[in-house]
Protein backbone atom coordinates (compact mmCIF):
# COMPACT_ATOMS: atom_id res chain seq x y z
CA UNK A 1 0.00 0.00 0.00
CA UNK A 2 2.63 2.49 1.02
CA UNK A 3 4.73 1.37 -1.93
CA UNK A 4 2.07 2.38 -4.46
CA UNK A 5 1.31 5.58 -2.60
CA UNK A 6 4.82 6.92 -2.92
CA UNK A 7 5.07 5.70 -6.49
CA UNK A 8 2.16 7.92 -7.51
CA UNK A 9 3.94 11.05 -6.26
CA UNK A 10 5.76 12.50 -9.25
CA UNK A 11 9.08 13.07 -7.47
CA UNK A 12 12.49 11.62 -8.16
CA UNK A 13 13.22 9.65 -5.03
CA UNK A 14 16.60 8.34 -6.17
CA UNK A 15 18.30 11.44 -4.81
CA UNK A 16 16.99 10.59 -1.35
CA UNK A 17 18.40 7.10 -1.33
CA UNK A 18 21.84 8.15 -2.51
CA UNK A 19 24.40 8.15 0.29
CA UNK A 20 25.98 11.53 0.92
CA UNK A 21 29.48 11.68 -0.53
CA UNK A 22 32.08 10.68 2.09
CA UNK A 23 33.73 13.57 3.85
CA UNK A 24 31.09 16.02 2.68
CA UNK A 25 29.29 17.94 5.41
CA UNK A 26 25.52 18.20 5.12
CA UNK A 27 24.55 21.54 3.52
CA UNK A 28 24.25 24.40 6.01
CA UNK A 29 21.32 26.77 6.27
CA UNK A 30 23.25 29.46 4.39
CA UNK A 31 23.80 27.24 1.33
CA UNK A 32 20.10 26.38 1.34
CA UNK A 33 19.20 30.06 1.55
CA UNK A 34 21.44 31.04 -1.37
CA UNK A 35 19.87 28.27 -3.46
CA UNK A 36 16.39 29.77 -3.16
CA UNK A 37 16.40 33.16 -4.85
CA UNK A 38 13.10 34.53 -3.50
CA UNK A 39 14.02 33.59 0.08
CA UNK A 40 17.45 35.15 -0.44
CA UNK A 41 15.89 38.46 -1.52
CA UNK A 42 13.53 38.36 1.45
CA UNK A 43 16.43 37.76 3.85
CA UNK A 44 18.55 40.51 2.24
CA UNK A 45 15.64 42.94 2.50
CA UNK A 46 15.23 42.21 6.21
CA UNK A 47 18.98 42.55 6.83
CA UNK A 48 19.00 45.84 4.92
CA UNK A 49 16.18 47.49 6.87
CA UNK A 50 17.59 46.17 10.14
CA UNK A 51 20.97 47.70 9.34
CA UNK A 52 19.34 50.96 8.28
CA UNK A 53 17.33 51.05 11.51
CA UNK A 54 20.40 50.31 13.65
CA UNK A 55 22.60 52.90 11.95
CA UNK A 56 19.92 55.62 11.76
CA UNK A 57 21.64 57.87 14.34
CA UNK A 58 25.01 57.51 12.62
CA UNK A 59 23.51 58.35 9.24
CA UNK A 60 22.02 61.55 10.66
CA UNK A 61 25.36 62.51 12.22
CA UNK A 62 27.19 61.96 8.94
CA UNK A 63 24.61 64.05 7.09
CA UNK A 64 23.45 61.20 4.86
CA UNK A 65 20.00 61.34 6.44
CA UNK A 66 17.97 64.43 7.41
CA UNK A 67 17.10 64.63 11.11
CA UNK A 68 13.60 63.09 11.48
CA UNK A 69 12.49 65.62 14.12
CA UNK A 70 13.49 68.84 12.34
CA UNK A 71 10.35 70.63 11.24
CA UNK A 72 10.17 72.94 8.26
CA UNK A 73 6.80 74.62 8.15
CA UNK A 74 7.47 76.20 4.76
CA UNK A 75 8.01 72.77 3.22
CA UNK A 76 4.93 70.91 4.49
CA UNK A 77 3.43 67.95 2.60
CA UNK A 78 5.86 68.24 -0.30
CA UNK A 79 5.95 65.37 -2.84
CA UNK A 80 8.88 62.92 -3.26
CA UNK A 81 12.12 64.33 -4.73
CA UNK A 82 11.43 67.77 -3.24
CA UNK A 83 14.53 69.79 -2.33
CA UNK A 84 14.20 72.11 0.68
CA UNK A 85 16.77 74.00 2.72
CA UNK A 86 17.20 70.76 4.76
CA UNK A 87 18.26 68.76 1.72
CA UNK A 88 16.68 66.49 -0.84
CA UNK A 89 13.52 64.74 0.43
CA UNK A 90 13.60 61.46 -1.51
CA UNK A 91 10.15 60.40 -0.31
CA UNK A 92 8.74 63.89 0.32
CA UNK A 93 7.84 65.59 3.60
CA UNK A 94 5.02 65.18 6.13
CA UNK A 95 2.47 67.57 7.62
CA UNK A 96 5.18 69.32 9.67
CA UNK A 97 7.75 69.42 6.88
CA UNK A 98 9.76 66.52 8.37
CA UNK A 99 11.62 64.20 6.02
CA UNK A 100 9.50 61.12 5.34
CA UNK A 101 12.40 58.77 4.56
CA UNK A 102 14.14 59.64 7.82
CA UNK A 103 10.91 59.12 9.75
CA UNK A 104 10.40 55.78 8.02
CA UNK A 105 13.89 54.62 9.01
CA UNK A 106 13.48 55.77 12.60
CA UNK A 107 10.00 54.22 12.55
CA UNK A 108 11.58 50.92 11.52
CA UNK A 109 13.48 50.89 14.82
CA UNK A 110 10.22 50.92 16.77
CA UNK A 111 8.17 48.72 14.46
CA UNK A 112 10.87 46.05 14.14
CA UNK A 113 12.00 46.43 17.76
CA UNK A 114 8.49 46.00 19.15
CA UNK A 115 8.00 42.96 16.91
CA UNK A 116 11.30 41.37 17.92
CA UNK A 117 10.95 41.91 21.69
CA UNK A 118 7.33 40.72 21.59
CA UNK A 119 8.32 37.54 19.77
CA UNK A 120 11.11 36.84 22.27
CA UNK A 121 8.75 37.20 25.25
CA UNK A 122 5.81 35.30 23.77
CA UNK A 123 8.26 32.69 22.44
CA UNK A 124 9.80 32.18 25.89
CA UNK A 125 6.38 31.82 27.53
CA UNK A 126 5.00 29.60 24.78
CA UNK A 127 8.02 27.31 24.48
CA UNK A 128 8.45 26.91 28.25
CA UNK A 129 4.80 26.09 28.87
CA UNK A 130 4.63 23.88 25.76
CA UNK A 131 7.73 21.91 26.81
CA UNK A 132 6.42 21.41 30.35
CA UNK A 133 2.98 20.37 29.13
CA UNK A 134 4.29 18.01 26.48
CA UNK A 135 7.02 16.45 28.63
CA UNK A 136 5.24 16.11 31.96
CA UNK A 137 1.79 15.25 30.61
CA UNK A 138 -0.99 14.43 33.08
CA UNK A 139 -2.48 17.10 35.32
CA UNK A 140 0.08 19.77 34.43
CA UNK A 141 -0.60 19.22 30.74
CA UNK A 142 -4.38 19.42 31.28
CA UNK A 143 -4.02 22.64 33.23
CA UNK A 144 -1.77 24.39 30.71
CA UNK A 145 -3.83 23.32 27.73
CA UNK A 146 -7.02 24.45 29.46
CA UNK A 147 -5.38 27.83 29.94
CA UNK A 148 -4.52 27.92 26.22
CA UNK A 149 -8.10 26.99 25.27
CA UNK A 150 -9.58 29.63 27.55
CA UNK A 151 -7.35 32.36 26.22
CA UNK A 152 -7.88 31.28 22.62
CA UNK A 153 -11.60 31.95 23.18
CA UNK A 154 -10.95 35.58 24.08
CA UNK A 155 -11.58 38.25 21.44
CA UNK A 156 -7.89 39.24 21.23
CA UNK A 157 -8.07 42.58 19.44
CA UNK A 158 -10.84 44.06 21.61
CA UNK A 159 -9.18 42.82 24.78
CA UNK A 160 -5.82 44.24 23.74
CA UNK A 161 -7.46 47.60 23.06
CA UNK A 162 -9.16 47.73 26.46
CA UNK A 163 -6.06 46.64 28.39
CA UNK A 164 -3.82 49.18 26.65
CA UNK A 165 -6.38 51.92 27.18
CA UNK A 166 -6.54 51.05 30.88
CA UNK A 167 -2.79 50.72 31.38
CA UNK A 168 -1.99 53.78 29.29
CA UNK A 169 -0.49 53.51 25.80
CA UNK A 170 3.30 53.10 25.88
CA UNK A 171 5.89 50.94 24.16
CA UNK A 172 6.28 48.68 27.22
CA UNK A 173 2.54 48.13 27.64
CA UNK A 174 2.14 47.51 23.92
CA UNK A 175 4.85 44.83 23.97
CA UNK A 176 3.46 43.17 27.11
CA UNK A 177 -0.10 43.05 25.79
CA UNK A 178 0.95 41.72 22.39
CA UNK A 179 3.20 39.08 23.99
CA UNK A 180 0.55 37.97 26.48
CA UNK A 181 -2.07 37.57 23.76
CA UNK A 182 0.14 35.68 21.30
CA UNK A 183 1.91 32.88 23.21
CA UNK A 184 -0.80 30.26 22.80
CA UNK A 185 -0.08 29.13 19.24
CA UNK A 186 3.59 28.65 20.10
CA UNK A 187 2.71 26.68 23.24
CA UNK A 188 0.36 24.41 21.30
CA UNK A 189 2.86 23.56 18.57
CA UNK A 190 5.70 23.08 21.07
CA UNK A 191 3.57 20.72 23.15
CA UNK A 192 2.47 18.66 20.16
CA UNK A 193 6.04 18.24 18.90
CA UNK A 194 7.41 17.52 22.38
CA UNK A 195 4.75 14.90 22.89
CA UNK A 196 5.89 12.97 19.84
CA UNK A 197 9.61 13.49 20.53
CA UNK A 198 9.22 12.17 24.08
CA UNK A 199 8.28 8.77 22.63
CA UNK A 200 11.29 8.65 20.33
CA UNK A 201 14.22 6.26 20.64
CA UNK A 202 16.89 8.85 21.31
CA UNK A 203 15.02 10.16 24.33
CA UNK A 204 14.65 6.62 25.62
CA UNK A 205 18.38 6.07 25.04
CA UNK A 206 19.24 9.26 26.93
CA UNK A 207 16.96 8.20 29.79
CA UNK A 208 18.55 4.78 30.07
CA UNK A 209 21.97 6.44 30.19
CA UNK A 210 20.72 8.26 33.28
CA UNK A 211 20.22 11.75 31.88
CA UNK A 212 18.05 14.05 34.02
CA UNK A 213 14.77 15.55 32.86
CA UNK A 214 16.23 19.02 32.42
CA UNK A 215 19.10 17.68 30.34
CA UNK A 216 16.76 15.67 28.12
CA UNK A 217 14.43 18.61 27.57
CA UNK A 218 17.13 21.18 26.91
CA UNK A 219 19.70 19.10 24.99
CA UNK A 220 17.61 16.46 23.26
CA UNK A 221 14.10 17.80 22.72
CA UNK A 222 14.60 21.55 22.31
CA UNK A 223 17.16 21.34 19.44
CA UNK A 224 14.72 19.14 17.53
CA UNK A 225 12.07 21.80 17.86
CA UNK A 226 14.19 24.53 16.32
CA UNK A 227 13.05 24.19 12.71
CA UNK A 228 9.35 24.09 13.62
CA UNK A 229 9.82 27.08 15.88
CA UNK A 230 11.70 28.99 13.16
CA UNK A 231 8.68 28.71 10.85
CA UNK A 232 6.24 29.68 13.56
CA UNK A 233 8.31 32.61 14.82
CA UNK A 234 8.71 34.17 11.38
CA UNK A 235 4.97 33.85 10.73
CA UNK A 236 4.21 35.32 14.15
CA UNK A 237 6.61 38.21 13.58
CA UNK A 238 4.54 39.31 10.59
CA UNK A 239 1.31 39.02 12.59
CA UNK A 240 2.71 40.96 15.54
CA UNK A 241 3.87 43.74 13.19
CA UNK A 242 0.38 43.98 11.73
CA UNK A 243 -1.17 44.07 15.22
CA UNK A 244 1.23 46.77 16.37
CA UNK A 245 0.45 48.81 13.27
CA UNK A 246 -3.29 48.39 13.87
CA UNK A 247 -3.09 49.40 17.53
CA UNK A 248 -0.84 52.38 16.77
CA UNK A 249 -3.22 53.34 13.98
CA UNK A 250 -6.04 53.52 16.54
CA UNK A 251 -3.89 55.68 18.79
CA UNK A 252 -3.44 52.88 21.35
CA UNK A 253 0.17 52.06 20.52
CA UNK A 254 3.20 54.20 19.87
CA UNK A 255 2.67 57.86 20.83
CA UNK A 256 4.04 60.97 19.05
CA UNK A 257 6.68 62.32 18.70
CA UNK A 258 7.95 58.73 18.36
CA UNK A 259 7.17 57.25 14.99
CA UNK A 260 6.11 53.75 14.10
CA UNK A 261 4.84 52.80 10.67
CA UNK A 262 1.29 52.28 11.95
CA UNK A 263 1.25 55.68 13.64
CA UNK A 264 2.60 57.37 10.49
CA UNK A 265 -0.25 55.79 8.52
CA UNK A 266 -2.86 57.18 10.88
CA UNK A 267 -1.26 60.64 10.87
CA UNK A 268 -1.19 60.67 7.07
CA UNK A 269 -4.82 59.60 6.85
CA UNK A 270 -6.11 63.20 7.06
CA UNK A 271 -4.07 64.13 3.98
CA UNK A 272 -5.17 61.17 1.90
CA UNK A 273 -6.54 63.34 -0.90
CA UNK A 274 -3.66 65.81 -1.03
CA UNK A 275 -0.48 63.95 -0.06
CA UNK A 276 -0.65 60.31 -1.18
CA UNK A 277 2.96 59.59 -0.17
CA UNK A 278 2.21 60.02 3.54
CA UNK A 279 0.06 56.90 3.57
CA UNK A 280 1.59 54.97 0.69
CA UNK A 281 5.20 54.60 1.89
CA UNK A 282 4.67 53.59 5.56
CA UNK A 283 2.06 51.04 4.43
CA UNK A 284 4.42 49.72 1.79
CA UNK A 285 7.12 49.36 4.46
CA UNK A 286 4.78 47.27 6.64
CA UNK A 287 3.60 45.18 3.70
CA UNK A 288 7.10 44.45 2.34
CA UNK A 289 8.53 43.56 5.76
CA UNK A 290 5.63 41.21 6.51
CA UNK A 291 5.95 39.77 3.01
CA UNK A 292 9.65 39.07 3.60
CA UNK A 293 9.00 37.26 6.90
CA UNK A 294 6.17 35.24 5.36
CA UNK A 295 8.36 34.25 2.41
CA UNK A 296 11.13 33.20 4.81
CA UNK A 297 8.62 31.13 6.77
CA UNK A 298 7.57 29.40 3.57
CA UNK A 299 11.20 28.74 2.75
CA UNK A 300 11.92 27.35 6.23
CA UNK A 301 8.96 25.03 5.85
CA UNK A 302 10.03 23.68 2.49
CA UNK A 303 13.66 23.26 3.57
CA UNK A 304 12.43 20.95 6.33
CA UNK A 305 10.89 18.80 3.64
CA UNK A 306 13.73 16.43 2.64
CA UNK A 307 12.43 15.91 -0.90
CA UNK A 308 12.33 19.63 -1.62
CA UNK A 309 15.72 20.11 0.02
CA UNK A 310 17.44 17.57 -2.20
CA UNK A 311 15.79 19.00 -5.28
CA UNK A 312 16.85 22.52 -4.39
CA UNK A 313 20.49 21.49 -3.98
CA UNK A 314 20.50 19.20 -7.00
CA UNK A 315 19.31 22.04 -9.20
CA UNK A 316 22.21 24.24 -8.16
CA UNK A 317 25.01 21.69 -8.17
CA UNK A 318 27.15 21.82 -11.34
CA UNK A 319 27.14 18.47 -13.13
Amino acid at each position, binding site marked *: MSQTDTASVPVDLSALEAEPAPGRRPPGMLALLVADRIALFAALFLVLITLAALSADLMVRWGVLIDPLTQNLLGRNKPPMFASKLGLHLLGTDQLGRDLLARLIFGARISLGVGAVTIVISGLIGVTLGLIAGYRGGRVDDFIMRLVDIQMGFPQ*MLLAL*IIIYAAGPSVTNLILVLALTRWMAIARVTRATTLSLRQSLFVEAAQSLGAGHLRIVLLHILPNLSSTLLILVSLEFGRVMLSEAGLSFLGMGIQPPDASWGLMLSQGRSY*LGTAWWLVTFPGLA*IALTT*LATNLLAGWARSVNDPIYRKRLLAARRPR
Partner: protein
Amino acid sequence: MARYVLRRLVQSLFVLAGLTIVVFIVTRQIGDVARLMLPIDATEQQYLQMRAMLGVDDPLIVQFGRYAADLLRGDFGMSLWQSVPAMDLVISRFPATAILAFATLGFSLFVAIPVGILAALRPGSLFDRVATVISIFGLSVPPFWLALMLISVLSLQLGWFRTSGYGGVEFLILPVLAISAQCIGRLVQVVRTSMLDVLTAQYLVTARSKGLFEWTILVGHALRNAMLPILTIVGDEIIGLLNGSVVIEIIFGWPGIGKLTIDAIERRDFAVIQASVIFVAIMVIVVNLLIDLIYAWLDPRIRYS
Protein backbone atom coordinates in the same frame (compact mmCIF):
# COMPACT_ATOMS: atom_id res chain seq x y z
CA MET B 1 -22.69 13.29 20.47
CA ALA B 2 -25.04 15.09 22.84
CA ARG B 3 -22.58 14.44 25.67
CA TYR B 4 -19.78 15.95 23.59
CA VAL B 5 -21.79 19.11 22.91
CA LEU B 6 -22.70 19.34 26.59
CA ARG B 7 -19.05 19.00 27.65
CA ARG B 8 -18.01 21.66 25.16
CA LEU B 9 -20.68 24.02 26.49
CA VAL B 10 -19.53 23.48 30.08
CA GLN B 11 -15.96 24.17 28.96
CA SER B 12 -17.18 27.37 27.28
CA LEU B 13 -18.59 28.55 30.59
CA PHE B 14 -15.02 28.54 31.96
CA VAL B 15 -13.93 30.70 29.03
CA LEU B 16 -16.77 33.14 29.63
CA ALA B 17 -16.19 33.25 33.38
CA GLY B 18 -12.45 33.91 32.91
CA LEU B 19 -13.15 36.56 30.32
CA THR B 20 -15.78 38.28 32.48
CA ILE B 21 -13.35 38.57 35.39
CA VAL B 22 -10.50 39.87 33.22
CA VAL B 23 -12.68 42.40 31.41
CA PHE B 24 -14.35 43.55 34.62
CA ILE B 25 -11.07 44.24 36.38
CA VAL B 26 -9.51 45.91 33.35
CA THR B 27 -12.44 48.18 32.53
CA ARG B 28 -12.49 49.51 36.11
CA GLN B 29 -8.92 50.75 35.56
CA ILE B 30 -9.83 52.73 32.44
CA GLY B 31 -10.81 55.89 34.22
CA ASP B 32 -13.15 57.74 36.49
CA VAL B 33 -16.50 57.78 34.79
CA ALA B 34 -18.09 60.07 37.41
CA ARG B 35 -15.48 62.75 36.79
CA LEU B 36 -16.06 62.43 33.06
CA MET B 37 -19.83 62.74 33.30
CA LEU B 38 -19.84 65.86 35.46
CA PRO B 39 -19.03 69.39 34.30
CA ILE B 40 -15.51 70.58 35.21
CA ASP B 41 -16.77 73.01 37.90
CA ALA B 42 -18.76 70.35 39.80
CA THR B 43 -18.27 70.39 43.56
CA GLU B 44 -16.62 67.58 45.51
CA GLN B 45 -20.02 66.75 47.01
CA GLN B 46 -21.66 66.40 43.60
CA TYR B 47 -18.79 64.17 42.57
CA LEU B 48 -19.24 61.88 45.58
CA GLN B 49 -23.00 61.78 44.98
CA MET B 50 -22.42 60.81 41.36
CA ARG B 51 -20.05 58.05 42.40
CA ALA B 52 -22.57 56.68 44.88
CA MET B 53 -25.32 56.85 42.28
CA LEU B 54 -23.23 54.94 39.71
CA GLY B 55 -22.20 52.44 42.36
CA VAL B 56 -18.49 52.88 41.63
CA ASP B 57 -17.53 53.81 45.22
CA ASP B 58 -17.98 50.27 46.56
CA PRO B 59 -14.97 47.92 46.80
CA LEU B 60 -14.18 46.13 43.52
CA ILE B 61 -15.26 42.76 44.89
CA VAL B 62 -18.68 44.12 45.88
CA GLN B 63 -19.13 45.68 42.46
CA PHE B 64 -18.17 42.41 40.80
CA GLY B 65 -20.55 40.42 43.00
CA ARG B 66 -23.38 42.74 42.00
CA TYR B 67 -22.41 42.50 38.33
CA ALA B 68 -22.11 38.70 38.39
CA ALA B 69 -25.51 38.36 40.11
CA ASP B 70 -27.05 40.55 37.39
CA LEU B 71 -25.32 38.55 34.67
CA LEU B 72 -26.81 35.30 35.96
CA ARG B 73 -30.25 36.84 35.50
CA GLY B 74 -29.31 37.84 31.94
CA ASP B 75 -28.89 41.49 32.83
CA PHE B 76 -25.75 43.03 31.34
CA GLY B 77 -26.34 46.45 32.87
CA MET B 78 -27.35 49.78 31.37
CA SER B 79 -25.29 51.92 29.04
CA LEU B 80 -24.17 54.86 31.17
CA TRP B 81 -24.58 57.32 28.32
CA GLN B 82 -27.62 56.15 26.43
CA SER B 83 -29.80 54.63 29.22
CA VAL B 84 -30.43 51.58 27.09
CA PRO B 85 -29.62 48.02 28.19
CA ALA B 86 -26.01 47.47 27.09
CA MET B 87 -26.69 44.11 25.47
CA ASP B 88 -29.51 45.58 23.37
CA LEU B 89 -27.09 48.15 22.07
CA VAL B 90 -24.55 45.46 21.15
CA ILE B 91 -27.18 43.27 19.47
CA SER B 92 -28.45 46.24 17.45
CA ARG B 93 -24.92 46.67 16.05
CA PHE B 94 -24.41 42.99 15.29
CA PRO B 95 -26.08 42.96 11.83
CA ALA B 96 -23.55 45.48 10.47
CA THR B 97 -20.60 43.37 11.67
CA ALA B 98 -22.22 40.17 10.43
CA ILE B 99 -22.97 41.58 6.96
CA LEU B 100 -19.37 42.71 6.59
CA ALA B 101 -18.03 39.35 7.81
CA PHE B 102 -20.16 37.14 5.61
CA ALA B 103 -19.84 39.32 2.49
CA THR B 104 -16.06 39.15 2.94
CA LEU B 105 -16.10 35.41 3.51
CA GLY B 106 -18.38 34.78 0.51
CA PHE B 107 -16.26 36.89 -1.81
CA SER B 108 -13.03 35.31 -0.56
CA LEU B 109 -14.30 31.76 -1.07
CA PHE B 110 -15.63 32.71 -4.51
CA VAL B 111 -12.13 33.81 -5.55
CA ALA B 112 -9.95 31.44 -3.53
CA ILE B 113 -11.52 28.05 -4.28
CA PRO B 114 -11.18 28.19 -8.10
CA VAL B 115 -7.73 29.77 -7.90
CA GLY B 116 -6.54 27.21 -5.32
CA ILE B 117 -7.86 24.27 -7.34
CA LEU B 118 -6.34 25.50 -10.61
CA ALA B 119 -2.99 26.04 -8.87
CA ALA B 120 -3.08 22.53 -7.39
CA LEU B 121 -3.94 20.93 -10.73
CA ARG B 122 -0.67 22.16 -12.28
CA PRO B 123 1.83 22.40 -9.42
CA GLY B 124 4.93 24.36 -10.40
CA SER B 125 3.26 25.94 -13.43
CA LEU B 126 3.37 29.68 -14.10
CA PHE B 127 -0.22 30.05 -12.84
CA ASP B 128 0.67 28.19 -9.65
CA ARG B 129 3.73 30.33 -8.95
CA VAL B 130 1.93 33.62 -9.68
CA ALA B 131 -1.03 32.55 -7.52
CA THR B 132 1.31 31.59 -4.66
CA VAL B 133 3.26 34.86 -4.70
CA ILE B 134 0.09 36.98 -4.97
CA SER B 135 -1.58 35.08 -2.15
CA ILE B 136 1.45 35.52 0.13
CA PHE B 137 1.47 39.21 -0.76
CA GLY B 138 -2.27 39.37 0.00
CA LEU B 139 -1.84 38.04 3.51
CA SER B 140 1.09 40.40 4.18
CA VAL B 141 -0.75 43.61 3.33
CA PRO B 142 -2.25 45.44 6.33
CA PRO B 143 -6.03 45.63 5.64
CA PHE B 144 -6.32 49.18 6.95
CA TRP B 145 -3.58 50.35 4.59
CA LEU B 146 -5.32 48.65 1.68
CA ALA B 147 -8.53 50.40 2.79
CA LEU B 148 -6.83 53.81 2.71
CA MET B 149 -5.27 53.10 -0.70
CA LEU B 150 -8.64 51.99 -2.12
CA ILE B 151 -10.29 55.15 -0.76
CA SER B 152 -7.49 57.27 -2.17
CA VAL B 153 -7.67 55.83 -5.69
CA LEU B 154 -11.25 54.63 -6.18
CA SER B 155 -13.10 57.24 -4.12
CA LEU B 156 -11.02 60.40 -4.05
CA GLN B 157 -9.42 60.23 -7.50
CA LEU B 158 -11.86 58.28 -9.63
CA GLY B 159 -15.00 59.12 -7.63
CA TRP B 160 -16.50 55.65 -8.06
CA PHE B 161 -17.46 55.10 -4.42
CA ARG B 162 -18.37 57.16 -1.38
CA THR B 163 -15.43 57.30 1.08
CA SER B 164 -17.46 55.92 4.00
CA GLY B 165 -20.94 55.20 5.25
CA TYR B 166 -23.44 52.44 5.78
CA GLY B 167 -26.36 51.38 3.67
CA GLY B 168 -26.59 49.61 0.32
CA VAL B 169 -24.15 47.40 -1.55
CA GLU B 170 -22.15 50.39 -2.82
CA PHE B 171 -20.94 51.02 0.74
CA LEU B 172 -19.99 47.39 1.22
CA ILE B 173 -17.60 47.03 -1.72
CA LEU B 174 -14.54 48.91 -0.45
CA PRO B 175 -14.46 47.44 3.08
CA VAL B 176 -14.98 43.93 1.69
CA LEU B 177 -12.14 44.38 -0.81
CA ALA B 178 -9.87 45.72 1.91
CA ILE B 179 -10.43 42.85 4.35
CA SER B 180 -10.66 40.02 1.84
CA ALA B 181 -7.06 40.37 0.59
CA GLN B 182 -5.75 38.62 3.71
CA CYS B 183 -8.62 36.17 3.74
CA ILE B 184 -8.09 35.22 0.09
CA GLY B 185 -4.34 34.89 0.63
CA ARG B 186 -4.76 32.36 3.45
CA LEU B 187 -7.61 30.47 1.75
CA VAL B 188 -5.77 30.07 -1.58
CA GLN B 189 -2.83 28.48 0.24
CA VAL B 190 -5.00 26.07 2.21
CA VAL B 191 -7.16 25.10 -0.79
CA ARG B 192 -4.02 24.51 -2.84
CA THR B 193 -2.24 22.34 -0.25
CA SER B 194 -5.28 20.27 0.69
CA MET B 195 -6.16 19.69 -2.98
CA LEU B 196 -2.55 18.65 -3.66
CA ASP B 197 -2.78 16.09 -0.84
CA VAL B 198 -6.03 14.70 -2.16
CA LEU B 199 -5.15 14.65 -5.87
CA THR B 200 -2.60 11.86 -5.42
CA ALA B 201 -5.04 9.61 -3.54
CA GLN B 202 -5.90 6.12 -4.73
CA TYR B 203 -9.65 6.71 -4.91
CA LEU B 204 -9.11 9.26 -7.68
CA VAL B 205 -7.37 6.60 -9.74
CA THR B 206 -10.37 4.36 -9.10
CA ALA B 207 -12.77 7.12 -10.07
CA ARG B 208 -10.85 7.75 -13.30
CA SER B 209 -10.70 4.08 -14.20
CA LYS B 210 -14.47 3.90 -13.70
CA GLY B 211 -14.64 6.43 -16.55
CA LEU B 212 -16.17 9.27 -14.55
CA PHE B 213 -16.05 12.76 -16.01
CA GLU B 214 -13.06 14.80 -14.90
CA TRP B 215 -15.44 17.44 -13.47
CA THR B 216 -17.30 14.86 -11.36
CA ILE B 217 -13.98 13.55 -10.08
CA LEU B 218 -12.75 17.03 -9.22
CA VAL B 219 -15.84 18.31 -7.42
CA GLY B 220 -17.48 15.11 -6.21
CA HIS B 221 -14.38 13.25 -5.07
CA ALA B 222 -11.38 15.55 -4.70
CA LEU B 223 -12.92 18.80 -3.43
CA ARG B 224 -15.25 16.96 -1.06
CA ASN B 225 -12.33 15.28 0.63
CA ALA B 226 -10.26 18.47 0.64
CA MET B 227 -13.08 20.30 2.42
CA LEU B 228 -12.04 19.37 5.98
CA PRO B 229 -8.85 21.47 6.25
CA ILE B 230 -10.58 24.24 4.28
CA LEU B 231 -13.43 24.20 6.77
CA THR B 232 -11.05 24.60 9.70
CA ILE B 233 -9.54 27.71 8.17
CA VAL B 234 -13.00 29.07 7.25
CA GLY B 235 -13.93 28.81 10.93
CA ASP B 236 -10.78 30.70 11.90
CA GLU B 237 -11.60 33.34 9.28
CA ILE B 238 -15.15 33.84 10.61
CA ILE B 239 -13.79 34.24 14.14
CA GLY B 240 -11.16 36.68 12.92
CA LEU B 241 -13.77 38.66 11.00
CA LEU B 242 -16.16 38.83 13.95
CA ASN B 243 -13.59 40.32 16.29
CA GLY B 244 -10.83 41.70 14.09
CA SER B 245 -12.33 44.31 11.78
CA VAL B 246 -12.21 47.11 14.35
CA VAL B 247 -9.87 49.30 12.32
CA ILE B 248 -11.82 48.81 9.09
CA GLU B 249 -15.08 49.71 10.84
CA ILE B 250 -13.46 52.91 12.11
CA ILE B 251 -12.05 53.90 8.71
CA PHE B 252 -15.32 53.36 6.85
CA GLY B 253 -17.58 54.64 9.64
CA TRP B 254 -19.21 51.21 9.68
CA PRO B 255 -21.61 50.98 12.66
CA GLY B 256 -20.55 47.53 13.85
CA ILE B 257 -19.52 46.09 17.20
CA GLY B 258 -15.87 47.17 16.80
CA LYS B 259 -16.77 50.82 16.40
CA LEU B 260 -19.27 50.57 19.26
CA THR B 261 -16.55 49.17 21.55
CA ILE B 262 -14.04 51.87 20.66
CA ASP B 263 -16.64 54.58 21.28
CA ALA B 264 -17.58 52.91 24.57
CA ILE B 265 -13.91 52.79 25.67
CA GLU B 266 -13.56 56.50 24.98
CA ARG B 267 -16.68 57.27 27.06
CA ARG B 268 -15.81 54.78 29.84
CA ASP B 269 -19.15 53.12 29.19
CA PHE B 270 -18.26 50.03 31.27
CA ALA B 271 -21.43 48.06 30.69
CA VAL B 272 -21.21 48.39 26.90
CA ILE B 273 -17.51 47.41 26.80
CA GLN B 274 -18.21 44.31 28.87
CA ALA B 275 -21.34 43.38 26.94
CA SER B 276 -19.63 43.64 23.56
CA VAL B 277 -16.57 41.61 24.58
CA ILE B 278 -18.74 38.89 26.11
CA PHE B 279 -21.02 38.93 23.06
CA VAL B 280 -18.11 38.46 20.67
CA ALA B 281 -16.73 35.67 22.86
CA ILE B 282 -20.10 33.88 22.74
CA MET B 283 -20.11 34.20 18.94
CA VAL B 284 -16.61 32.70 18.80
CA ILE B 285 -17.73 29.74 20.95
CA VAL B 286 -20.82 29.15 18.80
CA VAL B 287 -18.85 29.27 15.54
CA ASN B 288 -16.23 26.85 16.90
CA LEU B 289 -18.88 24.37 17.99
CA LEU B 290 -20.72 24.61 14.65
CA ILE B 291 -17.50 23.95 12.75
CA ASP B 292 -16.85 20.83 14.84
CA LEU B 293 -20.37 19.55 14.20
CA ILE B 294 -20.12 20.17 10.43
CA TYR B 295 -16.82 18.31 10.57
CA ALA B 296 -18.47 15.20 12.00
CA TRP B 297 -21.29 15.50 9.49
CA LEU B 298 -18.89 15.78 6.51
CA ASP B 299 -16.60 12.97 7.63
CA PRO B 300 -18.47 10.02 9.17
CA ARG B 301 -15.17 8.66 10.53
CA ILE B 302 -15.05 11.49 13.06
CA ARG B 303 -16.95 10.56 16.20
CA TYR B 304 -16.79 12.77 19.25
CA SER B 305 -17.08 11.11 22.63
